[in-house]
């Protein structure tokens, strides 16, 4: 039975329909969790002893950073599956994930920078994590650029998969090297978020937002994947029928 399921999933047409059904089922819980997370984070959680209310940026910054890494790994994994087993859907998921991952990376960088101003007195600081995030953004932009540069979609997907895999091997290396570099050139301040324990009233909204972001990624990647499928299959009958109906 599962074999049949996977076989049908590999068909773009079935994927398009299934994705369309799944999207609202993911989007609504996402919205609910976001509202809950925002309530607990912005209203219920008390101000921080050292940072006052500015620490609340964490509820966006940290989940965004987690997503930026998570999505890259998914992208590389899907790319590998597409490369090895030549499954079109894996290629579609990989390439649809790239702009979303880049957006989260950008968000992590911007919120990190804004948080840094009251914390460290400057808009940008070459902190280990921000620097690693910046490099991650470059890796994403490279994937997007390479995909746009190659005309044939299937060739582009394979090239992007190789690039993403090379990138994913490099991510721990880059992260380690930047952290090491940062301890050498450490400024006078120590990053506050290295505290090992976090108060429950702050942990709950953090986790709520983290799950909300994951659901967000799920339904948004399905939305982008549907567009990608439409483009790839634009000459097939079912797509033409679909276009006629709208």
């Amino acid at each position, binding site marked *: 039975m599962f074999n049949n399921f996977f076989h049908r999933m590999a068909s773009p047409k079935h994927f398009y329909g299934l994705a369309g059904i799944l999207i609202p089922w993911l989007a609504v819980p996402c919205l609910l969790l976001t509202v809950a997370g925002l309530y607990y984070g912005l209203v219920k959680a008390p101000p921080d002893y050292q940072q006052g209310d500015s620490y609340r940026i964490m509820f966006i910054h940290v989940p965004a950073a987690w997503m930026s890494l998570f999505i890259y790994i998914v992208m590389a994994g899907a790319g590998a599956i597409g490369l090895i087993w030549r499954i079109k859907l894996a290629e579609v998921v990989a390439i649809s994930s790239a702009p979303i991952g880049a957006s989260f990376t950008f968000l992590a960088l911007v919120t990190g920078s804004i948080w840094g101003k009251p914390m460290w007195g400057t808009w940008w600081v070459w902190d280990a994590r921000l620097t690693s995030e910046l*490099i991650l953004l*470059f*890796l994403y*932009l*490279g994937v997007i*650029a*390479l995909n746009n*540069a*190659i005309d044939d979609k299937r*060739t582009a997907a*394979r*090239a992007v998969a*190789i*690039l993403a*895999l*090379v*990138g994913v*091997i*490099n991510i721990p*290396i*880059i992260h*380690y*090297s*930047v952290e*090491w*570099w940062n301890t*050498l050139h450490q400024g006078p301040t120590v990053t506050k978020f290295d505290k090992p324990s976090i108060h429950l009233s702050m942990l709950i909204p953090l986790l709520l937002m983290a799950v909300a972001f994951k659901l967000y990624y799920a339904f948004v990647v399905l939305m982008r994947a549907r567009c990608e499928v439409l483009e790839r299959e634009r000459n097939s009958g079912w797509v033409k029928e679909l276009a006629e109906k709208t």
Partner: protein
Amino acid sequence: MNSDSLTRAFLILIRRDLMLAVRHRAEMANPILFFVLVTSLFPLGIGANPALLQAVAPGVIWVAALLAALLSIENVFRSDFEDGSLEQYLLSSHPVSVLVLAKITAHWLITGLPLLLISPLLGILLGLPVDAIKVLFITLLLGTPVLSLIGAVGVALTVGLRKGGMILSLLVLPLYIPVLIFASSAVDTAAAGLPVTAHLSLIAALLLLALSLSPFATAAALRVSLS
């Protein structure tokens, strides 16, 4: 297809590329000139304060080396791509990764080695102490092959593209960053008189990693680009 013929193919490829390079000897000077020029721009840009120059020297020289490596790696597959030999490599009975390794080795000998040899001069230009210059040399010896190996993957991915050059930089420079960090930090540490075995071991580790993985990734990328 035995290992003997594979070794021969490997050596033949290297010899051929070296002979071609020697015939266009003037072109071999380009990466060196670029390296020296870019390094010289920094004193002109930030002032000739010796203490400042010595402080930035490791980073500046290594960034210039990165850029020189990036500019020159573009050509590693170009002439073969244009005359169709690249497809022949893919069709041959030898494993493509070995042939690719031969191309990269030859390329490093032609472009990386000259950078290595001119580096002590640049160290002197920027006022590095002798111990630091020795370490600079070793970091370049270990590091420039890594640059060639990583760069080759990027070139293989973009070899058929029209504006491949711009995109190549975007793809490859982020991957160069760990080498830059470990190498410039090694030279910095040496300038302060401290031991650098840890730093050099890390660069050596990167070299081994690149040597074992890059030929396969490059071969796979070539297959994709030429499909």
